[in-house]
């Protein structure tokens, strides 16, 4: 059985500019897949091709088992899409928009009412359902957008930068909703984002896109561990410093650190921290403070492109 999203050599050019350059994608059923990259990397162009809004210049893509060029109308019945700018009519109420969306997807009138009520409750907009969308906050609009993309219980949900422009509280609330959705309904989620934390928090697997090409792909932890060993830092008293250094050097190469602090690149990765702590305790060394600094997705991005993502940790 085909994966819900499969793309081979998918490309799109605008004149001489290759917005998406021969990318391959394979997203498993029930997976939350993160498509991470800076502005202009080609994320939205890829989503527009996968959601039948834009014809590919080359390659092919199947979504929910159907070719996006040969069977676009079937694909549209099986996908839910929340686009980048929360495309919502400000003159209509949340309830009216949900009912419109039900009709567009051919839902029977009777079940539509129930479905709209359920969805408003799911995204916490029951009270605001009869208010015009023009009065909604950015977070409410995004949550309504999410509800609109769910009316027909899609097999695959595309979220194009769902939290761009949201305040931290609204962002976390939306993450929680996406997590619940994936866990409760098993919906496959294809999420584009420029936020490292968002990809790290939500996605089981990530593809990093830059200049239209996928430059890294894998689970966040595997991508980060591939960049290098995490840095383990411990603070000890000045007297314990020489013996602590001897013990620590058995577990990895020493890295620069402040006074009374020893830092190493922990070769065995995060799980190896227990061995280090035990060895230090066996040597009678009193540990005053411990820090383990995992490589971030920004380090992964920097390793792949030589640049840092905006907002990433330098």
């Amino acid at each position, binding site marked *: 059985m085909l994966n819900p999203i499969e793309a081979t050599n998918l490309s799109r050019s605008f004149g001489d500019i290759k917005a998406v350059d021969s990318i391959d994608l394979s997203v498993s059923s029930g997976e939350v897949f993160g498509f991470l990259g800076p502005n202009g990397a080609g994320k939205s162009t890829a989503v527009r091709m996968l*959601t*039948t*809004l*834009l*014809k590919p210049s080359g390659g092919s893509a199947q979504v929910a088992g159907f070719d996006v*060029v040969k069977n*676009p*109308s079937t694909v*549209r*019945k099986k*996908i839910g*899409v929340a*686009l*980048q*700018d929360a*495309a*919502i*009519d400000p*003159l*209509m109420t949340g309830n*009216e928009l949900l*009912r*419109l*969306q039900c*009709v*567009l*997807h*051919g*839902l*029977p009138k009777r079940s539509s009412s129930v479905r709209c009520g359920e969805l408003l409750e799911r995204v916490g907009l029951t009270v605001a359902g009869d208010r*015009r969308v023009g009065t909604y906050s950015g977070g409410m609009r995004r949550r309504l957008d999410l509800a*609109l993309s769910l009316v*027909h219980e899609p097999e695959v949900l595309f979220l194009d930068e769902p939290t761009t422009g949201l305040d931290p509280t609204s962002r976390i609330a939306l993450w929680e909703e996406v997590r619940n959705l994936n866990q409760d309904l098993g919906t496959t989620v294809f999420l584009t984002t420029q936020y490292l934390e968002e990809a790290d928090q939500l996605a089981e697997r990530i593809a990093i896109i830059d200049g239209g090409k996928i430059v890294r792909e894998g689970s966040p932890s595997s991508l980060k561990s591939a960049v290098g060993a995490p840095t383990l830092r411990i603070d000890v008293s000045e007297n314990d410093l020489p013996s602590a250094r001897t013990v620590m050097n058995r577990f990895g190469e020493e890295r620069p650190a402040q006074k009374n602090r020893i830092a190493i690149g922990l070769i065995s990765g995060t799980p190896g921290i227990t061995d280090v702590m035990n060895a230090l305790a066996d040597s009678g060394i009193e540990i005053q403070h411990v820090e383990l600094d995992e490589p971030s997705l920004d380090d992964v991005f920097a390793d792949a492109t030589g640049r840092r993502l905006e907002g990433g940790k330098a």
Partner: protein
Amino acid sequence: MKNNVFPQVVKLSHRSILGMLRQPQSWAPGLFFPLLLAAVYSSQFSRAVTIEGFPFADVSFLDFVLPACVIQGVLFGSTNSASDLAADIENSFMDRLLVSPVSRGSILISRLASAFMYGVAQATILISIFAAFGANIAGGAPTIISIVVIAALLSVSMGSFGIAIALRTGSQEVVQSTFPLIFVAVFVSSAFFPVQLMEGWYGAIARKNPLTWVIDPTRRMTIHGFSWNDLGQSLGIILAIASVGVGLSIRQLRRRLVRAQ
């Protein structure tokens, strides 16, 4: 899940009409300006009907300008539907429609339907106000219904050009920039003065202006009473205009869709 086109057209038309009603600034000028002009012209040009060569005898200037004001009001608002469509394109609501399994034709039909409903509402309100101020509509109900139908179809036909522009440019500003053209087209026609009394280039343009060919038979019905010939002439011109406008709209919709599939 069913995928019936008819409920989609009804629901999208409902949305278009609702959107229009909730923006009084979009339809109020189309109601206000024709009434203002009618009031000014009726008081200032009331004796114009006595000028030698005036084509209608024993008629008030209010009766004379009634069909023109109705048509003017409808034309002033005919870009509303197109402007709302351009807004949908600008704010990506159109993309929401296109990623759903909605029939592509229903997107266009719903906008034309809202233009029709706008024409019906605008014409009905304007005729009622004119009647309240003493305008006499010869032929009674058949003439009134004819004027409403003419106004509604004219709204669709002129609106369809705006819709084609909206689909082509996706810009509300460009759509609204066509308004002065409509304004000029109304004034260089027989709307407020009979072409028989016009001279020079102004008269020449007015005689060749399709709006004159719509207004004149509509006016004859208002003053002389209902006539199938006059109704047919008005509708014939409107349908000819509509066939070009709707054809252009379909072409532009296809052009926009071909970029996707």
